[in-house]
């Protein structure tokens, strides 16, 4: 297990290196420099060139890259160009909170509602709950979350005035963005759990469970759920990574100062260190989520072994 995890972490480093290299090159292809925006116009070409020199941007790309890598190994992500004198790590830290809060609320609510709907739909297959679940699942997957967001803002925020429409001042401000984000995990988990539970309920061991004389609820919880969970965990990794790292559209619509909006700003501003920092953070988080999913497989299904020697027998 330890060997497996450390091997996976080593692979992760290789992947991250590839991502860093690729992003660095792509970023340099972007037109313009950090200091040719309108607000730098008044500085004049001489001052702009001096700024470029100060940040080492006049050097050839390969030496810039090597310098960046060197700093990275020392744990230094550089300072933002756009927010002068603020280290990238600081900028990230100040923006991650809102995204993480909205994302985790959306995931928790979405999974709780979606999985319960999926289980009941499968248990009462072809019943009314099953049809409702399928309709919700199709809507949740096909209706973009910014449409849901706009509807929520208009009705819940403006017309009924129950919750704040936008901005980031209190926990109440996080509710609407979370609900808007919730529908996608809700829909996909409902659909997955329904399919898997249907499959599990037709298995022989469910009949064994029934023949032991247990209640339907115990059968569902003790015998069906765990076996139906495995494929759901598979989609969980990317889902968590996507939601916790922020949703561009939702953060924009609700004016949430999250990490998603930071990403857009940094690209618009050619804020190289922030772009790189965010990319590394996103990829590392994503890879970690997938690793966690693989580890949680073994906890749910004893037939899966992580190490190479398979059967523990």
């Amino acid at each position, binding site marked *: 297990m330890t060997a497996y995890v450390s091997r996976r972490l080593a692979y992760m480093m290789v992947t991250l290196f590839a991502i860093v290299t690729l992003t660095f090159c792509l970023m340099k292809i972007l037109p313009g420099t950090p200091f040719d925006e309108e607000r730098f116009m008044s500085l004049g070409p001489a001052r702009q060139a001096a700024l470029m020199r100060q940040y080492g941007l006049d050097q050839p790309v390969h030496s810039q890259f090597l310098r960046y890598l060197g700093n990275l190994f020392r744990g230094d992500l550089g300072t933002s160009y756009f927010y002068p004198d603020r280290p990238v790590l600081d900028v990230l830290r100040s923006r991650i909170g809102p995204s993480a809060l909205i994302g985790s609320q959306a995931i928790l609510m979405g999974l709780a509602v979606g999985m319960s709907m999926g289980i009941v739909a499968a248990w009462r297959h072809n019943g009314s709950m099953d049809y409702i679940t399928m309709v919700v699942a199709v809507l949740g997957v096909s209706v973009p979350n910014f449409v849901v967001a706009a509807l929520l803002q208009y009705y819940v925020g403006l017309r009924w005035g129950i919750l704040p429409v936008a901005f980031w001042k209190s926990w109440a401000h996080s509710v609407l963005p979370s609900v808007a984000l919730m529908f996608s995990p809700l829909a996909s988990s409902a659909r997955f759990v329904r399919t898997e539970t249907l499959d599990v309920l037709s298995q022989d061991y469910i009949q*064994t469970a029934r*023949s*032991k004389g*247990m209640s339907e609820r115990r059968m569902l919880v003790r015998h069906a759920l765990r076996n139906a969970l495995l494929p759901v965990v598979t989609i969980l990794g990317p889902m968590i990574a996507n939601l916790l790292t922020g949703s561009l559209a939702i953060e924009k619509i609700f004016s949430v100062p999250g990490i998603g909006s930071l990403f857009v700003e940094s690209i618009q501003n050619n804020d190289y260190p922030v772009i790189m920092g965010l990319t590394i953070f996103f990829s590392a988080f994503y890879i970690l989520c997938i690793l966690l999913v693989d580890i949680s497989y073994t906890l*749910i299904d*004893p*037939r899966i072994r992580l190490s190479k020697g398979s059967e523990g*027998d």
Partner: protein
Amino acid sequence: MAGIRADVEASPGTVFKDVINAPVLSVKDMSVSIKTDNGIVRAVRGVSFSLSQGKTLAIVGESGSGKTMTCKGIIGLLPPGGVIDNGTVTLCGLDVTRAHEKTMRQVRGFNVSMIFQDPLTSLNPTTPIGRQIEEMMVLHRPDMNESARKARVFEMLDLVGISNPAERIRQYPHQFSGGMRQRVMIAIALTLSPKLLIADEPTTALDVTIQAQILELMNDIQRKTNTAIVIITHNLGVVASVADHVAVMYGGRIIEEGGVENIFYSRKHPYTQGLLDSVPKINRAKERLFSIPGSPPDLVNPPEGCPFAARCGSRMRVCGSYVPPIMEFGGGHSAACWLYDKRATAPPSAVSATPMLS
């Protein structure tokens, strides 16, 4: 044993009469129908039999003859859309057809348990087998504490011949071979010493040497615990080695019933004859294996008269229109066939399953 039964009698919702001499299971004229997309399947059409303690009844028949539905009806686990629409099933004094689902839950596992065809899939793959055995006691014996339950698990594993129980209880089904998994299933089924064990083709999925061991084990346990067993099979070798009594099913009906000797040496029904003729014989010269021509009847629109009439070599005109009455031959041997009616034209000695060319 007596103690165990006593506390269930005291538990609420369960009503059991004194069952000392009454049969463990008595089925009278039971019919089962199942609603499907293609119409209502009359899976079981008026089946009667009874079984007393310590005895084994084998229900024999080809796929779709209604044998599995008969058993599922008995323990109240018919598939969705399935109902017992006629007759009574009395299990340890309880009328299953009228019992509340909650009562049935108390009966299942405690008074009657079931083992299934495929041991590879009938155990929960994500739960250690010790806990799967223990679950029976968690469900039905709240008076037992954890150490008593664990002791019973060890006892059961020992009974079914699984060594090293301390280690085995923590293992998962995939760490056991097919034969070992069926032993675990038997251990689960017999944990609470049920009065009746229903085994639905318990050896079909196992290889031949293991089959013999499992049958031997079932015989052995029956001698020790005096459990009544209903075994469903289409393997006549299995019948010969475990059964006391045999019921041959066809088209949702029992068409012949009797002791093992009756069925093997003086069978009466042409279908039973056909079944026995289809058993490969090791001492015969190379020849094509006999099979009964045709296929079983469609039970959505069951044929009038004898269900086997369309495939029967001794068919008479009456067979296609009237259900044959049950003819008694003494010693519990009976068959539902018009050939044994006084008015029959064809002599019963001409019983043959091969249709005559016309």
